[in-house]
């Protein structure tokens, strides 16, 4: 019952994050959306951990937080470099990878 609420919260956060990743043009906003996705996963992990009475999920959540911090560090550095080169962080202008 309680756990279902946590899972619903995780699902809502995940959807908001996916929406943000897909529609926002601002790279910083996309990074923040990714953080939302990761934290949605964290909530799920902790919720399942409580449900199963097993601490493994919480340990994984700690790992995810650590990885997310690293990911944001790298992501922000890339955004900074893109801004310095192009004076813009709008993602839809970055189409050098077009095949």
């Amino acid at each position, binding site marked *: 019952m309680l756990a279902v609420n946590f899972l619903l919260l995780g699902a809502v956060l995940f959807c908001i994050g996916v929406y943000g990743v*897909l529609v926002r043009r601002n790279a910083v906003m996309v990074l923040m959306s990714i953080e939302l996705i990761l934290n949605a996963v964290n909530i799920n992990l902790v919720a399942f951990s409580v449900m199963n009475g097993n601490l493994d999920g919480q340990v994984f959540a700690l790992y995810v937080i650590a990885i997310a911090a690293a990911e944001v560090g790298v992501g922000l550095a890339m955004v900074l470099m893109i801004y310095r080169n192009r004076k813009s962080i709008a993602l839809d202008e970055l189409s050098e990878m*077009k*095949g």
Partner: protein
Amino acid sequence: MVAAEVAHLSSGWFLENAWLIGLIPAVGFAVIILFGKKLPMQGSEIGLGTLGASLVIATGAGIQWMQRTNSAEGEEAAAGVLRGIARSLPRVEEGGHAEPFIEPVTKTWVWWQNSGLEFGLGSSIDGLSVMLLWLVAFISLLVQIFSLDYVRGDRRYTHFFAAMTLFSSGMLIMVMADNMVQVILGWEIMGLCSFLLIGHWWEEEANAIAALKAFFTVRVGDVGLLVGTAILFFGANQYAVDNLDTNGFNLGAIQAWALSGEASTWTIVMAATALFIACIGKSGQFPLHTWLPDAMAGPTPVSSLLHSSTMVVAGVFLVAQVYPVFWEGFNIANGGLSFIAVIGGITIVISALLAFVQDDIKKVLAYSTVSQLGYMMLGLGTGAWLPAVFHIFTHAFFKCCLFLCAGSVSHSGSHHSFDMKKDMGGLRKYMPITFGAWVVSTLALTGVFPFAGFWSKDEIIDNVGNNGYTFLFWVGLGGAALTAGYMTRATYLVFFGEPRGAAAGEHHDEHDVHADDHQLVGAVPHSLSAAANDHGDDHDHADHGHGGHDDHGPHESGKLILFPIVVLAFFATVSGFSNATPLGESWEQFKKFVEPRPEAVAFDAIIATGPGESVQLVVPAVDEGGDDGHGEAADDGHSTGCGRGDPEAATACFFPAVVHAEPKFAKILLSLAVVAAGYAAAIAFCVAFYKKRDPRLVGLTERSRVARAGYLFLANKYYLDHLYEKVIVRGVAHPIADAAYWINQRVLDGAVNGVGEGGKRAGNWVYDNIDQKLVDGAVNGSGFVASESGHAMQPVQSGKVNHYGALLFGAAAVGAIVLVILNVS
């Protein structure tokens, strides 16, 4: 049913760790091969040390086996329970004196597994195997001591000791085997070492040829070993799995199966025949004996160890070990004229006759060995198991001693020649110790009271007659007279008369000496060490040795050579007393300790053991009522007992009840008289022919056509070599070669040409139709498809991060849906 009172047979450390006896020389072999040349004695110390260790353990195991046997006797005497307990029947021929079956002490590990079958490696010690373990270790050690001096300075000194040690290891492994796979392993190691050692001086082509001949001839027989093992496995496996919790390779299971009455006659006859063919090859029986005299091309210690006292009795040992198979297969119980007995009888006579026409001392001894092996086979084939096994024991001592004496003579007396007529004679004055040992061993070989051969060979002959084989009894006696004859001739030529050739101090051109025989004992190490500068010490020594011979003529050998000879001569004198049947029951140690008791054992008394455990036969006490049946069965006498009727339900026999002849004074006198007659005739002939040059005898083969034909027949070894090489090999090989050539030219070439032509046409058609149209079409088509689909997919690669993200999440969502559906449904 099973009372608390339980009888234990004693065991001991040596019995349970007897596997070390085979393992230690195997490790020694590896050490000699890897590090031997760097050691101060070039590896020989490792060989001596490992065999000494094996001998110590084997001695301990022998003593503990005797204690184990005695402990069974003690239990029986004390409690009187074992008789009923072991469900044993009284020994039929001995008025119902029951002796319990003594379980072998087994300790094995799983070597490898295949489809549920476990192949063990380890030791299974019973009286027969412990006797041979001790014998092999003892003889090997003495022969290696002899070799220290005899092959000193040889170019391949280290390899010689390595091969000798490996051989001992192989023989010990075979003897202690508890399953047929390990028997084959040891058997093949011995075959390999025999090949290596016969061809030790392979620079001489004749030696290499002799090695190949020995190897291939024995291989012909070895096919029988594989076939026989396979037949036994398929025959015995079901019985072994059902009743004894083991598989059809286990020797005990094979023995029990053969005596169980469940085996089909056809299977067991086939198995016995196949196994005996292997024994014919290994033990030099007619008609595959031809390799053994040629094997004398090897160094004398090799002839002494492998080709007289130990390796060639492997076949006899195999027959003795799986005796129930032969007992049932050849119907020995009912006095059937068995294949084994016939072959043994033929071998005794033909090889003894051949020994008369040999000039080479070692070949005389080789044919003598073949003849004595014939006695052992004759004994086994007629139910005289105990005397045959006892003859293995005594024969090893005196025949090994005779060979070492021959080696001593050639080493110090005849300048490395083995030719009795050219290079020997009158040596008794120069080599008194060698002469004494030779005479003792000769008396032992010919069966003169009280030397060793008397107690064993006469027992064989006596038992053969007692078991109803009258003709073979006379064959055996005749063979004994022939033995006395050819040994007298050899003794006279070597040690009496006037010195000739090298024995008289003449200097031969070495190639002259050795041109007509293949015993290039002296020539090879000498010339090799002279040529090889990297062995400075050997060079000096060899030269010194040869110089000594040339200067001083014949002389007595050194201590290292004489010591083993004297020890062996001692055993040749006294070993017969270890089973002196005519002296009474208390002298029959072999009967007590070596011969397995022909008593049925209840299945539930046999403790099946896993790998790594040693067996103790724990005999559960049976309630009183269980004995009723046995008492009645015992009264029936010959119709019951192991090997003379099927064992009772839920019991197994491991050895048939063989009959032992009662020694009779008249028979002993008869055999002694025959031997004496043989001696008298031979001495008279030798004096007349070799000393006085009696004109009636000299040149007889030139004057009398009968004598000439007989001589040529013998000198050509019954034309058996011709038969094998010219008739069989050529007769089989040449038509096959011709046919193969014809087939090659007509059929194969035609086929190949036809196939080539067809291939060319097919190729053209394939090129036109398949290559051009189908393959090219497919290639072009796939390129076209790839190009088009690439164009179609191009928009996906927009370069926009959002699109990529959408694709990613969309794909993840699809994957998640699939997962959910799969898990729900």
